[in-house]
């Protein structure tokens, strides 16, 4: 119990971790993704995706409500036995390991393609994993601090993008719903991937200082994510004509080519480097949750060993094999399905099982 109290996180840190993880590479990718499937109406799918995710996240919070002594795994161990907890812990450890790997490879690819073309990927990975290890080996508190700092230090991003609005052509947003609701609705599952990781709240919940605000905090976090996605999508939609869209890779970065500051010629390069701060929130909490799950399974407390193993594996494996862009997309798709199972379905399932178990216990007690 004390362990959680000593190292509590504030509501802002909670929001920062969740929003940061979601926004990170979604911000670069989502305009293209939305436009590919739903055209200029993609933003509607985004709003629907947000609604679905909010519901799912409230379920996750509901699951944790009333249980203040530990994380989801402790809760499961209490109701379903140690092995139920271990099973879920293994699934989650896999999930977070893949999630962080995906994030790492994605950012490294972006950096390799735009900044460090000559440097081998494993060196880039090694470099970005140094700060990641320094933060993730600590407790949740430090992850919270890192995330909130990163988020606050990146508040300049919307301003730099608003420079591109000079070239905006608002007519590109019209007509609304040319193909009916069909494409819009079928795009919703594609947005799921970018909302993943709100599930972190089941790990963060016991550390939260003001638990009664957890529901509100997660809605704020998701809304922030939605707003930033909406912002970048609409900025891209009004900047690029529908025909251009298919030909341009990572439009969010492309947009910045038009911005020129008096002291900075190429804002885009600077942006990618500075954006590393946000990128890093994608993998740092996931790395921590991974090591937490592994430790929980084996009943250990020091997060460093699993972290070192995972980080070592990632770096060494990247020396031999790194997924290329198309493989990465396939990995994303697959992860999106996995994530849907873990983050959307699993809490619902657990909640149902839990309430049944509670009711059963109450009945046994009465009898």
């Amino acid at each position, binding site marked *: 119990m004390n362990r959680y109290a000593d190292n509590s996180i504030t509501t802002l*840190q909670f929001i920062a971790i969740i929003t940061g993880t979601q926004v990170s590479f979604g911000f670069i990718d989502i305009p293209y993704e939305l436009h590919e499937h739903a055209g200029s109406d993609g933003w509607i799918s985004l709003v629907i995706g947000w609604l679905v995710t909010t519901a799912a996240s409230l379920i996750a919070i509901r699951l944790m409500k009333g249980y203040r002594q530990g994380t989801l795994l402790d809760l499961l161990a209490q109701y379903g036995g140690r092995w139920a907890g271990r099973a879920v812990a293994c699934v989650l450890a896999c999930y977070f390991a893949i999630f962080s790997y995906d994030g790492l490879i994605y950012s490294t690819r972006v950096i390799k393609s735009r900044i*460090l073309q000559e440097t081998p990927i494993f060196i880039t990975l090694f470099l*970005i994993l140094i700060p990641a290890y320094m933060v993730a080996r600590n407790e949740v508190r430090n992850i919270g601090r890192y995330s909130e700092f990163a988020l606050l230090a990146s508040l300049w991003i919307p301003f730099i993008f608003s420079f591109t609005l000079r070239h905006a052509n608002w007519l590109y947003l019209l007509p609304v719903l040319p193909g009916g609701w069909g494409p819009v609705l079928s795009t919703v599952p594609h947005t799921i991937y970018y909302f993943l990781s709100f599930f972190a709240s089941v790990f963060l919940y016991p550390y939260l200082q003001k638990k009664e605000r957890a529901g509100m905090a997660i809605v704020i976090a998701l809304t922030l994510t939605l707003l930033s996605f909406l912002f970048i999508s609409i900025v891209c939609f009004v900047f690029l004509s529908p025909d251009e869209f298919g030909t341009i890779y990572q439009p969010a970065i492309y947009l910045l080519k038009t911005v020129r500051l008096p002291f900075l010629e190429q804002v885009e390069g600077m942006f990618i480097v500075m954006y590393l701060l946000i990128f890093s929130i994608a993998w740092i909490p996931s790395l921590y949750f991974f090591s937490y799950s592994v430790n929980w399974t084996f009943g250990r407390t020091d997060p460093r060993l699993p972290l070192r193993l995972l980080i070592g594996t990632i770096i060494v494996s990247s020396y031999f094999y790194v997924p290329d862009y198309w493989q990465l997309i396939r990995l994303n798709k697959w992860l999106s399905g996995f994530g849907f199972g873990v983050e959307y379905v699993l809490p619902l399932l657990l909640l149902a099982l839990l309430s049944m178990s509670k009711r059963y216990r109450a009945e046994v007690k009465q009898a």
Partner: protein
Amino acid sequence: MDLLRLLGIGRRIANTASGFGKRKSGYGYGSSDCISGNLDNDLKLLLALFTDTPDLNVRPLTIRATGRRAALVYLEGLTDKNSINNNILKPLLQNEEDGCGTTSVTVGRLNRMRRWIDIQSAVLQGSSILFVDGAADAQVHGTEGWPQRAIEDPQVETSLKGAHQGFVETLDQNIALIRRYLPHRNLKIKEQRVGRRSDTRVCTVYLDDVANMDTLAQIEGRIGKIDIDVIINSGELSELIEDDPYSPFPQILLTERPDTAASQIIQGRFVIVVDRSPSVLVAPVSFASFFQSVDDYSTRWSIATFIRFLRFFALLVAIFLPAFYIAVISFNFELIPLRLLLTIGEYRGIVPISPFLEAIFMELTLEMMREAGVRLPAPVGQTVGIVGGIVIGQAVVQAGLISNIMVIVVAFTAIASFILPNFDMVAAVRLLRFFMMIGAALFGIFGIMIGFMILIAHLISLESFGTPFGSPFAPVRFADWKDTMVRIPLWRMRKRPVSTKPAELNRQVAHRTEGEGK
């Protein structure tokens, strides 16, 4: 037999003179470690303790009032002769009628001690001891009068409007200087002693209804754990008790200004005064504390705010500018506007060495000149400026070894690091600059960013006595932003900083509202 016993005691005292914890608990001392009451024996033992101590003065005398034999013992240089002659020897030798005998001495502080270990330490700290034949305890007079300097203007932390008194090397005077600002009975002082040989007094000064008691326990605990022979000054103590010894950043603030110390105490922090050291330690502090200066509170708040911004900007410049120069010249030349690039290229063209070597060479030169300026005596110091300015600044460019732009970068960096108010922080910044330059030379702007992220990762995990060092930036404490980047008007600063976890948060009652007094 007698000699053996004397030596035995002498050694035992010498051995245990060390651990003050042991001494306080009185562990291991039999009755034989007390003075005997027989003057001759006691003096013999005393001389056995203090062999080869020519400055030890033993003055045998007969107290006129009682007619008993006695001896006054003191160390020559550490005592105030005037006080000994006039206030101790004179009454003892001349006063006739005095019912209570030896109390006729006219000194303020008078103790009685019977254990050798205490007596020995009292002699060494500058007290004078009166042994009276037949008395079971010795009389200890506070006659300290060691060489000391007058109170002067602080040398390192100069200020325009602050007080012109700086701390000196005597603990009691330093505490008096603080007490002058806070004449309040809640100003408490915890005294501890550190150092087996130096037996240095270390006092923790705080306001007991404001400061956080958990932090006090931590500070006391850490000081209590130190077991070292000597600490010479407060910088050593700070290194012994700080949280992360491997961090480049100072985690304890050193100040030589009593007004700064007092204002830190009011904010709920602790001031640790170390005897013989002209600067005191302030803990717990956060990163932002190193960017505050006492002048900020006596200039207009808008100007103070501007200067605060300037300092944080200077921090960024001092750490990143040379690195950025290297990155832009050797890697990411697409980042800067073309015309600027052309200008740089024009000067860089003739320089035969790589930008990294160029930058390292110039930065090292700058550091050497700075160090030379600090170490050289003032009359010779001027030559550093001439040699540095003319020979290195001008000649090196004319010879085509270094580009003009590089000289500008170095000069700008130097100026930026000069405006940071805390010397220790500047030292950390100077060191970090080199790491950033290496990062930039290897990976360009990406290397700088990695350096920055490592810096952030390090800063957020630092703690200063249980309070986060990165506050109020990470963890974000908006309430404390009133006195970090901006300095809001003092009448609005109603609360103390929350980062010190004060027991009493409120500092002033709102006495004026906005617009009042127009």
